[in-house]
């Protein structure tokens, strides 16, 4: 089986063909927004960072912004800078050069003012939009796909229907040469024994255990102040209302979505796996936006997102396929959810057949079919993690 994708000059394959308008610093957000608003197919990635940061925190921001620009779902990138920021527009542009895709920068302080910067940016992006409008898609092998799996708004159906069905899809992707990324390390506490057991070798098993233990230790350090004890729960009120009683219960239901194939390694936040194929754990906390942004930085072209309670969120240039295991939620939120896996519960449909349905949906979306989040313009999930 193949899908129709966009082969980029560096050989990476995209499933979308957007123009990225990316501020190097939050001060350039408004200019970037207004440039993107003028040009069809342009997406804007506003964020609150890029200056007054130090050390690892600044490095993670820089690495993540560069990774956004390098992503194959973007045909070209316009960097919008202010001019005095710590993460410089030049450093940003330099980080994108080896992709060989068109990259330009507009720096507000160099142009004179924000209006002049907007005008220049619109002219550049508009020309790209014309140039790329007839770019053809080609048949691409499934090994080009990096698919990330995530849950948000979990309820008890996530662990018994949606996540196991997505797990069938994950196994299928890996068996066809593709890559599966999973993360949400704050929500893996209690699942380390099972996950370490899936590692390809003892060194990876140790890395899996160490990654989860480090997150648990960090949570313990920041959560010990008795004044904030009432905010100490790692899982949300919606999870509790949905019947999930502990973080371990959530973890054990959550890991189904990564399937059953061996875990090849652990990658850092927004870092690409070293080789195509297999399953990788990305080290990131569980915040929906932070983890999805990390996945996109690691090269995920599509996100498969399970939700029991129902969430409408999307990412600016990466399709997010929503799957629910709760048919009540699907009925309520049909406009936001792509696949109803609730029939596993209500009609005793097999997990295997629902998994195949998710595979079909994945291939359609990879070939260009839009998700509900894309159609409605949902783009909330771009959110860079802080250290």
């Amino acid at each position, binding site marked *: 089986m193949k899908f129709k994708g966009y082969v980029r000059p560096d050989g990476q394959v995209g499933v979308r063909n957007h123009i990225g308008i990316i501020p190097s610093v939050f001060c350039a957000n408004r200019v970037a927004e207004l440039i993107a608003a003028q040009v069809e197919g342009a997406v804007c990635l506003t964020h609150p960072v890029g200056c007054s940061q130090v050390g690892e925190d600044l490095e993670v921001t820089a690495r993540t912004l560069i990774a956004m620009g390098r992503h194959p779902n973007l045909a070209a990138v316009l960097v919008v800078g202010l001019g005095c920021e710590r993460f410089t527009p030049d450093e940003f542009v330099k980080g994108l050069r080896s992709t060989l895709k068109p990259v330009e920068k507009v720096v507000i302080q160099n142009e004179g003012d924000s209006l002049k910067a907007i005008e220049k940016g619109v002219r550049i992006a508009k020309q790209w939009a014309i140039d790329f409008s007839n770019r053809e898609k080609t048949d691409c092998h499934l090994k080009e796909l990096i698919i990330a799996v995530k849950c948000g708004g979990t*309820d*008890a159906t996530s662990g018994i229907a949606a996540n196991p069905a997505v797990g069938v899809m994950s196994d299928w992707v890996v068996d066809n040469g593709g890559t599966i990324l999973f993360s949400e390390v704050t929500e893996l506490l209690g699942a380390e024994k099972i996950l370490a057991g899936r590692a390809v070798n003892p060194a990876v098993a140790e890395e899996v255990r160490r990654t989860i233990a480090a997150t*648990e230790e960090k949570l313990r350090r920041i959560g010990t102040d008795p004044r904030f004890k009432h905010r*100490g729960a790692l899982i949300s009120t919606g999870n509790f209302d949905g019947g999930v*009683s502990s973080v*371990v219960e959530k973890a*054990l*239901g959550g890991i189904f979505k990564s399937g059953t194939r061996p875990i090849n390694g652990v990658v850092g936040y927004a870092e690409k796996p070293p080789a195509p194929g297999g399953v990788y754990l990305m080290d990131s906390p569980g915040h929906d936006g932070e983890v999805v942004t990390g996945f996109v930085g690691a090269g995920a072209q599509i996100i498969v997102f399970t939700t*029991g309670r129902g969430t409408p969120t999307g990412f600016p240039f990466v399709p997010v396929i929503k799957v629910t295991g709760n048919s009540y939620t699907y009925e309520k939120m049909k406009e936001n959810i792509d696949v109803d896996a609730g029939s596993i519960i209500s009609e005793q449909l097999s997990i295997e057949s629902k998994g195949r349905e998710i595979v079909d949906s994945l291939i359609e979306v990879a070939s260009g079919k839009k998700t509900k989040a894309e159609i409605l313009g949902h783009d909330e999930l771009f959110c860079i993690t802080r250290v």
Partner: protein
Amino acid sequence: MLVMNLKDNVGVLLENAASGDSCSDGNRDIEIPENIEFGHKLALMDIAVNEPIIKYGQEIGHAERAIRRGEWVHVHNMGCRRGK
């Protein structure tokens, strides 16, 4: 009701249950003494204080008080030491 693993001592309700309803664990009926919502757990057997709550064949927490067979199992009677 769904039991995820043979080792489990809780099951998951696949529809809302009202006080006085019953469901089967495959062998015997379980009387349900309180209203329990779809997706929530009930005890398949009596569980003593501090005994583990088992779902997916793994410990997901412990009983913070004695729980009777058929009772709702959730944050009011179950604790978890992880992630604190």
